[in-house]
């Protein structure tokens, strides 16, 4: 990806939580931290050039849903959160891109260099970790 596809939406605050589903293969054992880390691979744009898809947590809450509900159809997955401010600090834009089936759908656009992907992964927090 050479640059942002969507202009940044300033109505999304820097502290807004953006949720990303984490496939089990993106949860990597980290013996240095004695825990599990999110691989930088979890923050890659799609091969077709589509920007990184996330969910705006505020809209999930507004629509009466929860993290567990978001993952109901995705057994084994985790849910991670990054802030919009973290994405912007990595020269990304954050824009609402609602879908008919998912009004919370949001896109993070911009060049995802390996360093950017690592920064997003390292700045992510677990919202839900599978048991």
């Amino acid at each position, binding site marked *: 990806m050479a640059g942002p596809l969507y202009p940044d939406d300033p109505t999304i605050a820097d502290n807004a939580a953006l949720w990303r*589903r984490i*496939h089990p*293969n*993106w949860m*990597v*054992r*980290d*013996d*240095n*931290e004695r825990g599990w*880390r999110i*691989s*930088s*691979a979890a923050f*890659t*744009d*799609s*091969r*077709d050039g*589509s920007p990184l*898809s996330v969910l705006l947590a505020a809209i999930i809450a507004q629509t009466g849903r929860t993290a567990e509900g978001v993952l109901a159809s*995705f057994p084994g*997955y985790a849910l991670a959160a990054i802030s919009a401010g973290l994405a912007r600090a990595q020269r990304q834009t954050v824009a609402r891109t609602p879908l008919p089936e998912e009004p919370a759908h949001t896109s993070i656009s911009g060049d995802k260099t*390996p*360093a950017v992907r*690592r920064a997003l992964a390292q700045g992510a927090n677990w919202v839900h970790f599978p048991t």
Partner: protein
Amino acid sequence: MSQPVTDSANPAAWAPATVQSLGRVLELPPGWDSYGAPAIQPAFAARALDLMVAVLPDDAPAPAVVPTSRGGLQLEWHTRGIDLEIEFETPHRLRGYFHDHQTHTSWEKDLSADHSALLEAIAILSQRS
């Protein structure tokens, strides 16, 4: 000198788990990541295995084999105070990231043609207990 991974009587310590992980990644169906990812291309797995046979000593720890949304894969080690990641951007284009928590040494490099930094990183990883 690395033990050939095909020597099933005495494989390198990292080989069984890694080959199993590569096999599991190759079985992922299109759309496996819930975001429309393509299936992982076998050429990536073959290249990753070739690289590991070439550069990993027998007693190296096994990497995590991590698929990417673009149909490729990464090898990752986060152990012994080292973070080492090798991303296959194409089967023959590699980028590496290394961070040593003990010495605070870091680098990110194109490893496609020159494996010297990778060999040095793996030597540190393998020798450290």
